[in-house]
């Protein structure tokens, strides 16, 4: 699936919403509202697998799920229709909502699960479509060596592919308080976390009636924004999450009685995402832009930056997954970070980011860096020569001192740097927006250094 977005809040008309409890006349309490899930299973015919696995697996999973999640899920599992088997097994990421049978789209979620032959055994993959928002979750993958383990790993995939709902209760500057759906329903093992480890959330605004029940209508997704639980293990229905966003200002809308601020889970994936960089306006691929990830802090130390390389002529850089679902990616051109965006690798196969043409700024930056380097060298050369002249003077070595003084006089003139800075001033002033102010700021700093150097007479130090 290819997704094209720009850095803005987009309104996506999606599926006609049926409501979370369309058959209920009165809304059930959020924490007591179970998920109605349809599971469609496809198993590749393979001699290494038990012969009746295709029939047994849906039954087996339906039987084992309650043992783990208790009453939170109302799961109906069945074999995938014939026309869906091949896509589930071989191109799960490309399956669209329209391909799903109407009978499967009656609850809250549809989860597709496939078991196919892999390189060293079997590949179990699962992916969820959230029917409330019309959004697909990432694909979760498990490599299985032994056929006997397939059922167990399929259960893991099923649980991991599940994207829980939470309601955004409160929004502070950088954190939100969330309330998890179905969290109060009985669970067999109270110690088990309420959501799979590593799950993050994306905020989605959906329409509701005055009583809080979701009604059909378009949903609003908030791009480049994820809510990351502040605790590693969620064991109560109410929990907090930090807001990671690439947008500025208040990214989550205020409370409104006819709008539900939903947080939809996103599972960590083993898949990558292609980030395609395009020029605003011309849509030409942007080449030579570095895409990197700012790793999270570890043990109190600032996180390192991991580079994924520079975009080629097609403007593409592949962002691989990490242990955390969300990676904060940095888009750099020269020394300037042009964008800082949270991204979940694998959530979309490709995303497009449009950026303003940065080449004029880069030309100025490159020239300023050259001047800066040369000034640093001049400072170093000047100081070293002054020290040597002093040393020569101390030993009454006048010939050597004179020679060094001559070298000092012959150092490149600061005036030539100031003239070059004046040229760059024009170029910087021709820039627009923040690039202009940043380059002018940098230029001003370098000019200050140059003028200080000019004012300092090295001979006065002798």
């Amino acid at each position, binding site marked *: 699936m290819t997704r094209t977005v720009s850095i803005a809040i987009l309104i996506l008309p999606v599926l006609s919403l049926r409501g979370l409890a369309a058959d209920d006349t009165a809304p059930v309490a959020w924490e007591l509202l179970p998920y109605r899930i349809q599971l469609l299973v496809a198993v590749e015919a393979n001699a290494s697998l038990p012969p009746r696995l295709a029939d047994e697996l849906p039954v087996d999973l339906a039987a084992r799920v309650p043992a783990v999640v208790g009453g939170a899920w109302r799961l109906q599992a069945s074999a995938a229709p014939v026309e869906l088997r091949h896509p589930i097994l071989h191109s799960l990421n490309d399956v669209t909502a329209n391909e799903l049978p109407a009978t499967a789209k009656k609850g809250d979620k549809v989860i597709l699960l496939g078991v196919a032959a892999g390189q060293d055994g079997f590949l179990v993959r699962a992916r969820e479509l959230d029917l409330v928002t019309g959004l697909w979750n990432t694909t979760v993958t498990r490599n299985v060596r032994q056929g006997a383990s397939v059922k167990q790993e399929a259960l893991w995939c099923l649980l991991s592919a599940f994207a829980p709902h939470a309601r955004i209760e409160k929004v502070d500057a950088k954190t939100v308080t969330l309330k998890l759906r179905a969290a109060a329903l009985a669970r067999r093992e109270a110690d088990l976390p309420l959501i799979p480890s590593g799950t993050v959330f994306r905020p989605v605004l959906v329409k509701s009636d005055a009583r809080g029940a979701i009604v059909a209508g378009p949903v609003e997704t908030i791009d480049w924004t994820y809510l990351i639980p502040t605790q590693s293990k969620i064991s109560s229905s109410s929990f907090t999450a930090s807001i990671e966003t690439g947008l500025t200002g208040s990214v989550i809308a205020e409370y409104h009685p006819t709008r539900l601020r939903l947080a939809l889970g996103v599972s960590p994936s083993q898949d990558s995402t292609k980030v395609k960089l395009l020029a605003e306006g011309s849509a030409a691929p942007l080449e*030579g832009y570095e895409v990197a990830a700012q790793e999270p802090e570890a043990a109190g130390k600032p996180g*390192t930056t991991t580079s994924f390389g520079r975009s080629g002529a097609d403007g593409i850089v592949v962002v691989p997954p990490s242990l955390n679902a969300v990676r904060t990616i940095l888009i750099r051109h020269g020394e300037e970070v042009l964008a800082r965006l949270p991204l979940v690798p694998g959530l979309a196969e490709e995303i497009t980011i449009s950026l303003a043409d940065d080449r004029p700024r880069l030309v100025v930056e*490159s020239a300023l860096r050259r001047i800066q380097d040369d000034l*640093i*060298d001049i400072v170093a050369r000047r100081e070293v020569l002054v020290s040597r002249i002093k040393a020569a003077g101390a030993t009454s070595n006048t010939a050597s001192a004179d020679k060094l003084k001559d070298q000092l006089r012959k150092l490149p003139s600061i005036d030539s740097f100031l003239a070059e800075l004046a040229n760059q001033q024009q170029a910087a002033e021709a820039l627009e927006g923040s690039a202009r102010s940043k380059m002018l700021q940098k230029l001003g700093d370098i000019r200050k250094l140059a003028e200080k150097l000019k004012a300092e007479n090295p001979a006065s130090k002798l």
Partner: protein
Amino acid sequence: MPRSPRLVNWTKMAVATLGVAWLMCGIAPAKDTDPLYLQSPFDEITLDENNNNAVLKVKPLNLPGRKVPAPADRKGDLEIELVEQAGQTFAVAWGAVVKVRLFEELVLAEAQQRVQEGRFDEAYAYFRSLEAKTPPVVGLKDAIESCLYTQIGASFTAGRQDEAMTLLAELSGRNPQRTGLSKAYERVSLELAKSRIAEGNFRAARKLLSNLAERYPETKTTSVAEFETMLKDKATALLMQTKTDLAAGKLREAHEAAGKMLETWPAIEEGKQLAAELHQKYPLLSVGVISPLAAAPAKPSDDWASVRTGRLLGRPLAEAGSGESDGAFSSSFGELSRPKGNAQVVLKLKDGLKWQEPPRILRAQDVVRTLLSAATPKTPGYDESFAKVLAGVEVGTEGEIRAVFVHPQLKGEAWLQRCLPGYGPYKLANAAPQQVSFVRQAAYFGGAAGIQPSEIIERTYPDAAAAIQALRRGEVSMVDRISPWDLRRISSGDEFTVEQYALPRVSVLLPNPRRLLLANRTLRRAILYAIDRESILRRGLLTGQSIDGCEVVSGPLPRLPFSDDARPSGYDPQVEIRPYDPAVASVLVAVAMQEAASSAAVPSKSLTLAFPAEPIARIACESISRQLELVGLQITLKEIPAGLAAGEDYDLLYEELVMQEPVVDVWRLLGPGGVSGECSSAMLLALRSLEQAKDVKQATLRLQEVHRVAAAELPVVPLWQLVNHFAYHKSVKGVPTRPIGLYQDIEKWQVELRVPLE
């Protein structure tokens, strides 16, 4: 200085009454540690018993002809000036003087002492100082001859026959009649001839014997005759071997035997005719090399051996003309054109070209496959830079091959300097470290049969000096690279030609792109300041010579000594060459370490400097290593054996770049996926701008911007450029002037039989 009578009287009285004790207190023992001949001259006077046999050190006596008068002539006073009381003269009665030793005698005595101790080099320094004196020092001539004779004996005994022969020549020049000289000359000559024969240097052995016979004719029938008979017998055996091999069709073996035969005894009966007959059948060329080929190169490379032999093993689809100003491309496969501006290059193959064994017609698809393979990752010939510029290759309606580029290419043909595998004038027959041989491909289209050598053998030598010796003695007929410091050993003349390659090579240090520390441009700048490039080039490599085109450079592009409209250099002479300044380098190293620490990397000052195993790189890197250590970096040198890749275990790699077509080669070096690793945004911008150049003039200006960015960012650390030379014997014909590579135009070469001189 006029003498004061009072002082004279007083001195006399002093010597007479106070005795020598007073004077003695003014004589300090010699404290100078310098050799005697370098000290201020003085004479030595020994007084009689009445003066306690005192020995006085005095300023050189003013004696006529610097000769001590005979006892009968010693009358009156001897005027002296004590060394320790300079400026005061004294008079000593000649009667009180029992012995006078002049400074010259003292120096000579000390020189002879050195000879006795076997310290000959030191003794010669004494002798040289005495030889400069007038009048001639008595006994000096005999002393020098004795010294030489003694040293000849010592050298002979120690097995240093070359040294003994040099000394004999010196002694003979000084005194050809010296007793024992003829015997010594004979013994040394014969011993030396024996070792030359053992080394296989028959030419030198024969020369030694003929010199001996000429100088001492009596040896002609005795010792010299004995040796000559031995050589003749050996040559006869080789003659038989040649005939046997020839009869058995072992042409290369026969060639080698014939070569040795003529080398052993050129005048052997039937020898020359047999060698000529053999040469006609199987012309063979031996080339002396320093960097041997380890394996056939899969793709364009800057490796010296790969560049050299690449032309033997594969004919490029497009080739630039040789010479200084001819950079236009052509193809021996057919007609090259650029029908749609610079967006594509079209090659229309000639009809009937054959390749492979058994021969078959070369088809357009064969060429397409080769080009696509070069742009396909994980294939041996994969060239990432080429892959990034190539949009596709297709065969047109008339069978023409179209290479279509992603962006227009001003020198698109240069990207087609790729060879079809196995489609060259020669094929690799055998590769060993000491010898690599190439045999002519029967199916090759480019050469007229029977003209170029049937086989080329590359023999490996440790350095150019050894290769030149091999060239002189006929072991090889060419030397592919003469180190600059060895250029003095050989020059163009009747026997040899020394030729220059068309383009200089730019020596650089390539930072390993996978080492974080080297990603810091401040550190790279520090490294540049830390290396005394001018000194390494002028003193270390050129050894004081001045060779046009050899100079320190400010970037990776070569500075061409001539204006070339077809091949823009792009070197910007306005860019300052950063001076050698180790103090500034130290400051920048400290700054770089701070920057590295702040970016969460673990800064380390230990760097591995890798270099290919050849003399120029070795000398350069040893010097660079010492200079980098002076600024606080710890350097580990790593020599990469010939033919092997540098791998990953290095921080800096010494490389000599061939920037044959800078418009294209800058991409291979500095572009995305290029040799220097990461291409910065600024560099990419400059390269893309270059790509849009409409003509050579524009390309030159834009290449200069690439040069300026490279000089500022230092993706490679520029050192210097070297103009390289090769040498060949006149028996090799058809070698072009100023070729780009050694075997350029090999199809036109002709090798005549080289008969060693008598």
